[in-house]
């Protein structure tokens, strides 16, 4: 496997191992046994132990694999990375804004921002889509479908 992929696998597996370790600790804080048998911490304890075993074996296995030299990078750079990050950022931003400003405003910003970032340049198209997707969708869902979406600050 390529050097970067190998590094990726090692990091990922090591992280999973760390999670299992954490779970072992947390399980020990709960009791492992109960008057009827397994207690609340029982399964998580043994599962995390198993998880660590698998992770360990996996790390060992990946480690001794022959490394194929290649330029192939695991994670993107440049514009690709930008696109990935902008989506993540946009959704995070939308979630934050929704809490403060309500669905409609948050979506308005989200849609306009993301469509622009992903390449659309026609302002009228962005505008139309943003309004339909925020206020329009809000109306349809809350009025017709009875699905509650976070209201804006003007709704008390």
């Amino acid at each position: 496997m390529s050097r970067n992929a190998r590094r990726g696998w090692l990091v990922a597996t090591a992280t999973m191992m760390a999670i299992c370790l954490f779970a072992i600790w947390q399980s020990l804080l709960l009791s492992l046994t109960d008057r009827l048998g397994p207690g609340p911490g029982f399964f998580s304890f043994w599962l995390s132990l198993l998880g660590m075993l698998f992770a360990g074996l996996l790390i060992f296995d990946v480690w001794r694999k022959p490394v194929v030299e290649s330029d192939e990078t695991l994670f993107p750079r440049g514009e690709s990375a930008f696109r990935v990050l902008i989506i993540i950022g946009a959704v995070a931003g939308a979630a934050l804004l929704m809490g403060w400003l309500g669905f409609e405003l948050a979506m308005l910003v989200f849609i306009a921002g993301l469509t622009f970032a992903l390449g659309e340049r026609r302002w009228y198209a962005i505008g139309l889509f943003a309004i339909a997707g925020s206020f329009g969708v809000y109306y349809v869902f809350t009025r017709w479908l009875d699905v509650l979406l976070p209201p804006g600050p003007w709704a008390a």
Partner: protein
Amino acid sequence: MDSLGYLMSGLGAALSFNNLLFAFAGCVLGTLIGVLPGLGPAAGTAILIPLTFNLDATGAIIMLCAIYYGAMYGGTITSVLINVPGEAASVVTCIDGYQMAKQGRAGSALAIAAIGSFVGGIVATILLVAVAAPLASLALKFGPAEFFALMVAGLCLVVGLAGRNILAALLMTALGLLLSLIGMDPVRGAPRFTFGIEELYDGIGFVPVVMGLFGVGELLLAAEARQSHLIQADLKKWYPSRDEWRRSSGAIGRGTVIGFVLGLIPGVGAIVPTFMAYVLEKRISKNPERFGKGAIEGVASAETANNAYANGSMVPLLALGVPSSPTIAVLMGAFIVNGLTPGPFLFQEKPELVWTVIASFFVGNVLLLILNLPLVGLWARLLKIPFAYLCTGVLIFCIIGAYGLKQSLFDVWVMLGFGVLGYVLRKLDFPIAPAILALILGPMMEKSLRTTLEISGGSFAIFLDRPLALALLAVPLIVLAAIALRPRAFANLRQTDIE
């Protein structure tokens, strides 16, 4: 009048203009509910119950049932088109269905799903007519001990999902199981691993996790590849090719059986039969490596099992008055409000009503087919929208979906988090499906074990007294033995090929 006589007269009633209209309306609404985010089938059905107050009892029930299995189909559409399961049970369809869509074969996938669902539904309803009462009482013998054994056997399916890297699959399974333990524990009924976050008290929320792992993760991958459209391949014909038909027919048959049989057991949930049918299909296939890359049998088996389960789970409902899932519980509530009390005496008390409803299951399945097949081409064309719009649209969809279930912004964050996680795992080629299966089965396993021990007073000997449970528990042992003894499989384990 014997059953067949009742059925015939019921069919006549079901085909009356009014009832036909209700069935149709139900199918449309159901499909919409399945497609739209934020409306799980349970909530969607519950919202529509007041609508039915003004209808006569028969019409109301026909419509509500149509909504139920319509929603099952609607969930398929989004699974295939955008890799977002419309409702939890459609998650298995994503695996191959979306890959088919990426190859331009969305039409085939949706068509085969419609047809498979139809066959599964009709056969399940026929079996319902034939054997409802005796099968239902047999299913009662399935207690917590057997349930636990079934879940353990189900977990062994993981091996079938492993793909090339069994170690990674096992690791993901363990992590999935750990994740599933978050929430109220069945021992004390107190929160566990929630770190004070109230929204986690009920567990981590299957839908946001899956929406993130599958839907958002996929979008991130497509964004990285700088695709101008989500699907690059040309759209092929919307109906399956002869080859695809041939391969799917066996899958449909097997899926029907698995779906129906598991539908008889209350509480199993739709995801277990869909996974089982899928894994079985993969196991007996001559080219298992095609699965996960757009094998039509994968879609056919999963969808058939799904619908066979939906119709099959009517058996415990009608025969025993026991709802198999929260959605069916809503349906049952609607039945009761409309004067129909499901239970063993239902068939004696109100035979005409019951048989009309059952007849409408047939009608409904036909209507669904008629409704959805022509639209398949239309749905497939949606994928040609430019990426900027499709991506944003899907994200709006996912945000509403994650939020709408419990009006919780926390779930939106969960979805985003798992979206990033799904992206990373996909880049590394870690198998995700085992973790999903583990996430479903984990809580059911632990709870049923706990209940079993409560019943036996702490003694594990209860398993020795119950042959069915023992038989089911033997399955994982057999599977493990098979892996250990087959040299090819063992070599696979040692030399995990991760390339």
